[in-house]
Each structure stands twice: as C-alpha cells, then as structure tokens.
C-alpha cells in the first residue's frame, strides 16, 4: 500500500505511458489549424498552454478551479461550428465531476475534454489527490454518459485521439497520464486582456 501511495503516477493496473503536460499541449496546439478554441484550466494546465505559444483563441483561467469544462461547454454551445478544447487537471476535475453528466446530456459534438492526470496537486506541493490510487478518470467519464472517452496510450495515440475528435459526432474525453513536472511558463495574469483577446479571437468583437 505504501508503495502505491508514493507512486501515484505508476499505478500498475494501467498500461498507459507517463507523458509530459507541456509536450502533449504543444502536440495539441500544433494540430489546430482552424482557429479552434482552447480553454486552459487553473495553474499548470494553462501555464503550459501559454508556454506552447499564445493563440488568439486561447482562454486562461486564473481561478475558479474546476470550471475549464463548463466554460468550454458554454463556448461550444455559443459557437457550434467551432471546435472547442478544454485542458483540465485531475484534481480540478474532481472539484466539478457533475459537469461530465451535464456535458453528456447536452452532447455537443464540437467539445473535446483533455484530462491531465498525475494523481497529485502539483502546484501546491505535489500532495496526492483523494482519487490518486483508486479512481479511473475514463471510467468516471463513461459512467457519466460520455461514451467517447479513452486513455491515450502514448503520444502518438494522443495525437490520433485529438485528430479523431476534430470530426467526432459526440463529445470526446481524452485522459492522459502525466509526470509531476510543473508547467514551463507563467501566464500573464491580466484577466480583462485575456477575456477581451479571447473574444477577438472568437470573432465576437472587433478591436477598438
């Protein structure tokens, strides 16, 4: 038991490779060719989105832990012809598991949820989450009604799942096991600019 507790990222039951958040985020961004919206969850998730290269269609959360998927759902409902991605940590998702069934009920086909699962609250000192050694994100999502949910086995599988989701007919959830490295960048904490630039990027507003 002590073994399992101390190595949350190497739970033996899973055959998924332990990958890196920044690498995966960079791979995702490189595949976005059609001004897809990307919502970055609190902390490392949006730090790595920022570090992967700012895009006008990126939104960075500076609080409201757990709301990356609900915010992305709102964007997806407002702009049904635009593909929308949301990046969320496993600890953040645990705060708002109820949103998975809401999304399953509304079933927006243009929404792809990516869960970066390292089993720890990296940013607060890498304490294990309450789910770290026992829960399976994909099983939770499937149980909530998101049938199109899968673990990415490795980087190539992640890219395949991302590509599939770009033409999916129902919402997609991709879970990835990641290491406990911190984010490599630091988002500029200017919420009004973040919001305004995102709205410009989505074509909702024109620049002053």
């Amino acid at each position: 038991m002590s073994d399992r507790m101390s190595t949350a990222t190497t739970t033996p039951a899973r055959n998924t490779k332990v990958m890196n958040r920044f690498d995966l985020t960079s791979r995702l961004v490189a595949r976005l060719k059609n001004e897809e919206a990307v919502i970055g969850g609190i902390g490392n998730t949006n730090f790595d989105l920022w570090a992967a290269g700012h895009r006008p269609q990126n939104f960075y959360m500076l609080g409201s832990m757990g709301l990356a998927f609900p915010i992305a759902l709102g964007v997806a409902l407002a702009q049904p012809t635009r593909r929308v991605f949301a990046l969320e940590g496993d600890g953040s998702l645990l705060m708002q598991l109820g949103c998975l069934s809401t999304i399953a009920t509304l079933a927006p086909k243009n929404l792809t949820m990516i869960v970066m699962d390292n089993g720890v609250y990296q940013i607060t000192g890498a304490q294990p989450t309450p789910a770290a050694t026992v829960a399976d994100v994909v099983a939770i999502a499937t149980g909530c009604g998101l049938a199109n949910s899968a673990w990415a086995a490795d980087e190539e599988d992640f890219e395949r799942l991302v590509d599939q989701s770009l033409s999916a007919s129902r919402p997609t959830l991709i879970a990835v096991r990641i290491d406990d490295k911190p984010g490599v960048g630091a988002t500029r904490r200017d919420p009004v600019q973040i919001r305004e630039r995102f709205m410009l990027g989505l074509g909702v507003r024109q620049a002053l």
Partner: protein
Amino acid sequence: MAAADGQNLPQSFQEKAWHEVVLQTLKRNEIRLVPYVPDRVLTTLIKNIHADPFFTTFPTAREEEAVGIVSGAWMGGMRGAVLMQTSGFATLANVLASLAIPYQIPLIMFVSERGTLGEFNYGQSLVCRTMRPVLNSLAMEHHTTTRLDEFEFIVDRSIKQAITTQAPVALILSPLLTGGKAFEK
C-alpha cells in the same frame, strides 16, 4: 397599493405574473442560455422556459458550473442567465471573485430567496444572511425585488446595465414578489 390599481400603468404590468415578466424580459434582451439549479418557487418559470424553443435551458449539478457555462457562452457571443436559490448563491463566492468580476463578465443571476418571511428551515434562514454581505463585500450590483409593478423595470434595466458595464448582477426574488415557499404543516 395605489399603483397596483393603476390607471397609469401599461396593460402589461397589470396582467403578467412575475415569472412571465422574467421570461419575456430575457427574450427581449436576447438571453437564450438559461442553466439552473431548481427551486420550488422557480418551477413554473423553468417549465415555461423549457417549453419555449427560443431558449437553451438545462439543469446543472452545481451553481458554479452554471456560472462557468454562461461565462464561456458570453465570451462566445451567446447571452445567458442563471437561476438558483439562496443556498446555491452561497456556493458562488469563489467563482464571482475569480471569474465573473475580474474578467468583467456580465453574469446575470436570478436568486429565489429562501430563508426569510416565513422560513421553516433554520439552515436556510442562516445561509440567507450570508447573501447580501457577500454581494456587498464584492461591491456587486444587486436588487431585492418585492413588487410586481416595479419588477419589469428592475429586470430589464439590470440586464442592460450588466451587459453595457460588463459587470455581474444578482436579482433576488423576494417572497413578497413570488409568494415564496410556505410552511405546509
């Protein structure tokens, strides 16, 4: 109550129920997205919004989830409003302070007021007392609506102010307006 007898009032003020005022004012202001966590007092409003194809409406598991959804939708060009009861508002301090206010999002909230004027659940009466202090501490616009003859004016103007000033607003639906939820035994 002279105003309610009202020769001076437009016909519309005299005949509509409060929930009809909400529905029509949302429509007039192009507010299509209405996620909610239900409340007994909101039952008819929720039913009528579901029945009207103008609206996209659905329940969420938590109030802050609904706040996230309408915030994302607004940034994507679709206006929304959230329906909840007092105890639900009490879960929102973090999302108000970290999303709606700093990002300047015109979050429109209708809060059915439990906890006063005949409350029978002690917990509801306690949590109700946290609502206005939270709103005041964040310097948020809020109105407690008690009269049908003022209601359309308050709702319509508050929605327009929220949107033009890019600031949240809470419209508290008092039992004086709605009848509230009465103790039945």
